[in-house]
């Protein structure tokens, strides 16, 4: 997990690991299941070493596990890092160029029918869309998780439309050859 995510989740108030995890799970819904339970503690350990987080120990565990004796607090440097991260403009890049070049290379070398490659890709994306939609139907309307899933669904739809354009284009090229 990106360290800044954990750091920013901690900005609300000093928290224990399991509390951060619960906050993440609420926000992610079914995608939160993919989170490894230990992962958050690994990340917190790294943040502590980097001086972005300080640890206060309580004498008795106040959470479900022994390690829940530790309460994590942002340091001044940590607060600074969170402010910078929130101001950063970044966006995940979908790698369409690789797929595009795959089609071009396959057609140029006469190795595989590009349309077959497009079909296989479409099948895969439709399966993902189906799964994402099922998850979207299962979470409450208006929840944080529903909003994330809507974004995933829209993105898959956009990719599927591009694949349609790929298929139309390569069908025309095949006729010309």
């Amino acid at each position: 997990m990106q360290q800044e995510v954990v750091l920013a989740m901690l900005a609300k108030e000093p928290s224990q690991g399991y509390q951060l995890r619960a906050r993440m799970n609420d926000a992610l819904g079914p995608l939160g299941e993919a989170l490894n339970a230990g992962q958050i503690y690994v990340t917190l350990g790294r943040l502590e070493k980097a001086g972005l987080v300080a640890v206060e120990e309580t004498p008795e565990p106040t959470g479900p596990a022994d390690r829940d004796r530790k309460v994590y607090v942002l340091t001044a440097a940590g607060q600074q890092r969170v402010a910078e991260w929130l101001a950063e403009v970044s966006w995940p890049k979908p790698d369409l160029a690789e797929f595009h070049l795959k089609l071009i290379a396959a057609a140029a070398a006469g190795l595989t029918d590009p349309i077959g490659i497009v079909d296989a890709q479409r099948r895969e994306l439709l399966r993902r869309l189906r799964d994402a939609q099922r998850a979207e139907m299962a979470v409450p309307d208006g929840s944080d998780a529903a909003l994330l899933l809507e974004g995933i669904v829209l993105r898959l739809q956009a990719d599927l439309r591009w694949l349609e354009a790929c298929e139309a284009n390569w069908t025309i090229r095949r006729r010309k050859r």
Partner: protein
Amino acid sequence: MSGSGTALLRARGLRKDYGKGEGLVRAVDEVDLDVATGETLAVMGPSGCGKSTLLHLLGGLDRPSAGELWLNDRRIDRLSERALAGLRRQEIGFVFQAFHLMDELTARENIELPALLAGRSPRQARRKALALLDRVGLADRANHLPAALSGGQRQRVAIARALINDPLIVLADEPTGNLDSAATLEVLRLFDQLHAAGLTLVIVTHDERVAATADRLVSMRDGALVDETRLTGGGRRSFADLIRLEDS
């Protein structure tokens, strides 16, 4: 292209031509299709590929130029007009893009109409309509006119109407074509519930979201079925890699 299990609906060499001689257009070209009981099948393709014509043939709204069509082991492509009309009323439910609700009738009355036409008593029709309104989540909208309903609600009323005579199969033509994203989800959720309850459904669509809810997807190009995809099965959460949760 065949489904698993018993085919409830079976088409063999189905063809539909318009025009003659030089101007002949083959809208549906030698289609073989099996729809299994309880299956949701989506037919996808660009506009003009013949998918709506195919749906009209499957539902007996139009007659094929050639080929055979079987519903529940009964050959239906050569039925008389009268018998075909009875079949459409009793055995097949239709859902359309533009809902086709009667503006001057309430939601309940719209749903009752096919039952009354099929000879049910007003009391039976009413009881059934109210049960269906409840099933589609619109029990509190029974006395609303269509104009007072949202697009998603209108389509749910139309789906309830399609179910009133307990059809063997429901055929839907672009059921989300007039709906926004939230209303689309409403309709997909309802289809999902009906699917779980055992409904057999054929949906013609160009909406990827609708296609993705199907068990099986066939693609249509220039009147012919060109590709088949089974969407059920596979790993859970196959979309999870769309968000990065691991430390990079």
